[in-house]
C-alpha cells in the first residue's frame, strides 16, 4: 500500500479512529497497530508477511535468551545466530543473483565459463529497513544498552510499525521500542505538527519527485542522443527526484507516527544546503548513516585506532552503505565516490565552522557540494557502470544534439513546474535552516495552499512508487 494511494486514504482514517477510540486499552491499541501494519505490508504480497513475522520471532526469542545468558560464548553465538538469520534472509532475497552473476563474470574473465544460476526471486518490500531495525535490537541487547522485550506484542509492533516499515527511518529499539511499551497520549500540538509534515512530504513526493521522474526516466533512457545541457538537467532533476521521493516518504512516516503518538528520529535535515560532503552525510538518510556509525564503524575501532585503520573503517562504511542500497556495482561505486570525497575531511581534523547561518554567504560551498553529490547520483541512477561512465562521457563531449525537455510543450511545462517548486522548496528549507530549525514548520493556512498545489501540479497520472521501496 502506498502512502499516495486511494487505498491508504481509506485505510488511514479507519486505523486512526480505531486506534484512538481504544486509547484506554493499551494492549488493544498495540493489536490494532500490529494488524493494521500487517494489512499495510501484506497489501503488496501477503507472502512477505511470513518473512517479517519470522524475523520478528527470531529476534524476539534471541533477545530474550541474550538477556538471560551471562556466558560470553553463548552470547556471541546468539548474536551470530541473529546476524546469520537476518543477513541470510537479506542476502538470499536481495543479493543472491548479484553474487551468482559476479562469480560467473569473474570466472569467465579467468577463461572459464560458468553459467550463473539465477533464481527468480521477488525482493520483499522494505526488507533492508526492517532487517536493520531488528538487528539493532539484538546488537543493543548484546551490548547491554537495553533490556530485552518481555512481551512479544510491543516488539512485533516495533518491527512492523507501518509508517516506517518499508522505507524507514531505521529506528533503534532504544528509541522506539519503549514508546510501544508504555501508553500513548494524544497531544494536539504534536499531531498538528505531524499533519503538517505529512502534507509537506506529499508535496515533495507528488509535485517534485513524480513530475521530475517523467523527465529523468526519458533522459537516462536516451542519454546517448542528449546534449550536455539535457544530461545535466537530467541528473539535477534526479537529485531532486530522489530527495523529494525519499525525504517526502520520511516526512510522511514521521508525521503519521506523530498522529499515532510516536516520535521517530529525523532522517533528513535539508541535505542540499550542506556545505561539504561531511556535512551532507550529517543531513542525508541520517538513520542509516548513524546505524552504520554505531554498528559497523565503532565496532571496527572507529576513530580510536590509527588514522589509516580509521580511514579504512570509513571506507568500509561508505562501501557497505552503497551496497545496502542494492545488488549492483553502481551503488558500490556511488558509496566509493562519497568515501573518496570524504577523505579530505577525515584528515582535516579541525572542524569547519558550519554554524554560519547566512545561506547566501555559503552559496559557493553549497553549490560545489551539490555538484559533486550530483556526479555520484549518476552512478546511483544508472542501470550499470558502463551506462554511468558513458553518461558522464556524453556530458563532457556534448556529442548528442537532442534535448528531451525542450522537444515538446508538455515537457517544457512539466520542467517549468518542477523547477518552480524546487526553488520554492529550497527557499523554504533555507529559511528554516537560517532559523536553526531541523524541519519545515509550515503555518496552518499554507497547508490549504499546499493541498491546492498538490491537486493542480501533482504528477498523479505519472504516479510512481517510492524509489527506496526497492532497497
Amino acid at each position, binding site marked *: 500500500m502506498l502512502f499516495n494511494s*486511494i487505498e491508504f486514504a481509506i485505510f488511514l482514517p479507519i486505523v486512526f479512529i480505531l486506534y*484512538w477510540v481504544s486509547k484506554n486499552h493499551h494492549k488493544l491499541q498495540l493489536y490494532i497497530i500490529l494488524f493494521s501494519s500487517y494489512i499495510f505490508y501484506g497489501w503488496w504480497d501477503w507472502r512477505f508477511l511470513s518473512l517479517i513475522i519470522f524475523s520478528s520471532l527470531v529476534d524476539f526469542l534471541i533477545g530474550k535468551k541474550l538477556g538471560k545468558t551471562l556466558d560470553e560464548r553463548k552470547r556471541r553465538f546468539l548474536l551470530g545466530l541473529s546476524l546469520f538469520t537476518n543477513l541470510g534472509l537479506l542476502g538470499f532475497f536481495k543479493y543472491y543473483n548479484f553474487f551468482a552473476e559476479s562469480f560467473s563474470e569473474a570466472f569467465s574473465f579467468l577463461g572459464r565459463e560458468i553459467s550463473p544460476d539465477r533464481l527468480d526471486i521477488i525482493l520483499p518490500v522494505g526488507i533492508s529497513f526492517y532487517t536493520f531495525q531488528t538487528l539493532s535490537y539484538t546488537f543493543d541487547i548484546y551490548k547491554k544498552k537495553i533490556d530485552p522485550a518481555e512481551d512479544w506484542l510491543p516488539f512485533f509492533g516495533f518491527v512492523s510499525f507501518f509508517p516506517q516499515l518499508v522505507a524507514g527511518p531505521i529506528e533503534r529499539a532504544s528509541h522506539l521500542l519503549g514508546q510501544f511499551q508504555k501508553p500513548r497520549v*494524544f497531544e*494536539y500540538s504534536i*499531531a*498538528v505538527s505531524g*499533519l503538517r509534515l505529512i502534507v509537506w512530504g506529499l508535496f515533495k513526493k507528488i509535485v517534485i519527485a513524480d*513530475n521530475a521522474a517523467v523527465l529523468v526516466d526519458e533522459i537516462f533512457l536516451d542519454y546517448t542522443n542528449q546534449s550536455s545541457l539535457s544530461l545535466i538537467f537530467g541528473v539535477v532533476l534526479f537529485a531532486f527526484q530522489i530527495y523529494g521521493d525519499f525525504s517526502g516518504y520520511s516526512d510522511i512516516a514521521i508525521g503519521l507516527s506523530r498522529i499515532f503518538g510516536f516520535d521517530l528520529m529525523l532522517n533528513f535535515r535539508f541535505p542540499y544546503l550542506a556545505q561539504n560532503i561531511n556535512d551532507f552525510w550529517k543531513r542525508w538518510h541520517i538513520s542509516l548513516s548513524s546505524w552504520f556509525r554505531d554498528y559497523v564503524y565503532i565496532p571496527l575501532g572507529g576513530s580510536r585506532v590509527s588514522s589509516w585503520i580509521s580511514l579504512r573503517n570509513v571506507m568500509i562504511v561508505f562501501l557497505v552503505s552503497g551496497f545496502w542500497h542494492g545488488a549492483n556495482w553502481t551503488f558500490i561505486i556511488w558509496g566509493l565516490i562519497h568515501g573518496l570525497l570524504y577523505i579530505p575531511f577525515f584528515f582535516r581534523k579541525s572542524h569547519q565552522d558550519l554554524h554560519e547561518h547566512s545561506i547566501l554567504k555559503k552559496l559557493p560551498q553549497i553549490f560545489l557540494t551539490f555538484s559533486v553529490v550530483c556526479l555520484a547520483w549518476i552512478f546511483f541512477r544508472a542501470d550499470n557502470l558502463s551506462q554511468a561512465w558513458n553518461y558522464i562521457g556524453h556530458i563532457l563531449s556534448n556529442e548528442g544534439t537532442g534535448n528531451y525537455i525542450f522537444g515538446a*510543450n*508538455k515537457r517544457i*511545462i*512539466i520542467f517549468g*513546474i518542477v523547477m518552480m517548486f524546487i526553488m520554492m522548496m529550497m527557499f523554504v528549507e533555507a529559511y528554516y535552516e537560517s532559523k536553526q530549525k531541523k524541519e519545515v514548520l509550515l503555518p*496552518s493556512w499554507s*497547508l*490549504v495552499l499546499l*493541498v*491546492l498545489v*498538490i*491537486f*493542480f*501540479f*501533482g*504528477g*498523479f*497520472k505519472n504516479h510512481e512508487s517510492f524509489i527506496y521501496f526497492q532497497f
Partner: protein
Amino acid sequence: MKKFVLKSILYLAIALFIANVLAYMGLRILGKSDFFKTTYLVHHFPEGQSFDLAVFGSSRSLAAIDTKIIGETTGGLAVNFSMDYTALPSSLLMLEHFYAQGYTSEWVVISLDLPDFEESKTVISENDHRFLPYISNNYIREYFVEYEEAMLKPIAISKYVPVVGFAYYNMELLAPAVQALLRPSYKYRFDELGNYQYPDYLAQQEMPEARYFKTRLSNPILKEIAELTNKNGSKLIVYIAPYLRDDISVESPLDFLVINHSRLINEPKYFSDYIHVVNSGKVLATEAFIEDLRKIDNQP
C-alpha cells in the same frame, strides 16, 4: 483529539472546496473555448449545422485527409474531427458528441486502424480527457464508466467532483485552461476545418519490408457506429488511411462502404513514420479519397 479531527476536516474541506471551484472554472473555460477539437466542435459551428462530410478517427486520418481540399473540390463543407492518440471507441464518442450538438452530415467517414478491425481494447485513449469539460453529458460519462480502468475512475467521477479528473490530468489541462482564458479562439494543432499536417522534412528515407494482414470488419463498435449514422441520416464510409509497410485486405466488406488506401502510397518520402503521411502524402491521399468518394457517390 476531537479538536484535531475537526480542524483537519475543516482545512481539508476548505482545500477541497477551493480546488473544486477552480477545477470547475478551468473546465468551464476550456469548454467555452476552441482549444481542443472536442470543444471546438461544440462552439465553432451554429446549432443544427449541416455538413457535407465529417471525418472521425485517429492521428492517421488527421494526417491523411485534408478537408480543405475536399471542400474546395466538391464545393461542400467538410471537417476533420479526428484526434491524435485515440482509438475507435473515442471515434464513436466523438461522433456521438457531434450528433449531440444537433449537427448532421451527409457523409460520415470513420477511419480505422490496425488494432481496431476486429475488436478494440476496453481502455481510454491518451487524449480522451479532452472530453472532460462535457462530463455532465450522459453519453460521455457512460463512456468513461465503461472504459476507465482504475478503481477510482477519475474522469467519470468528475461529474460530481471536478477536481479529481482535473488533478489527474492537470499537466494536460492546466496550461490549456490558462491559454483558453487568454485566447478562447486558439486551436491546439488544427485549423478551422480540423486539419493538421506533418511537415515534409520528417519524410522517411527507407522502404521497410511489407507486412500483410487479412482481416474482417467485425468490431462491434463499427456496428454501433453504423446504427448511429443510420439513425441520424448519414452515409457511412469506413476509411483505411495509407500505411508505409502494411498491406491490409478486408474480407467480405459488404456491410460497409470501404475505402481501403492501406497500399495507396508506396514511397517512404510521403511518410513521417510507418503510419502517418507527411504533407505531400496527404495531398495524394486526399485526391485519391475524393476520387473514390465520387465513385461511391455515383453508384446506383
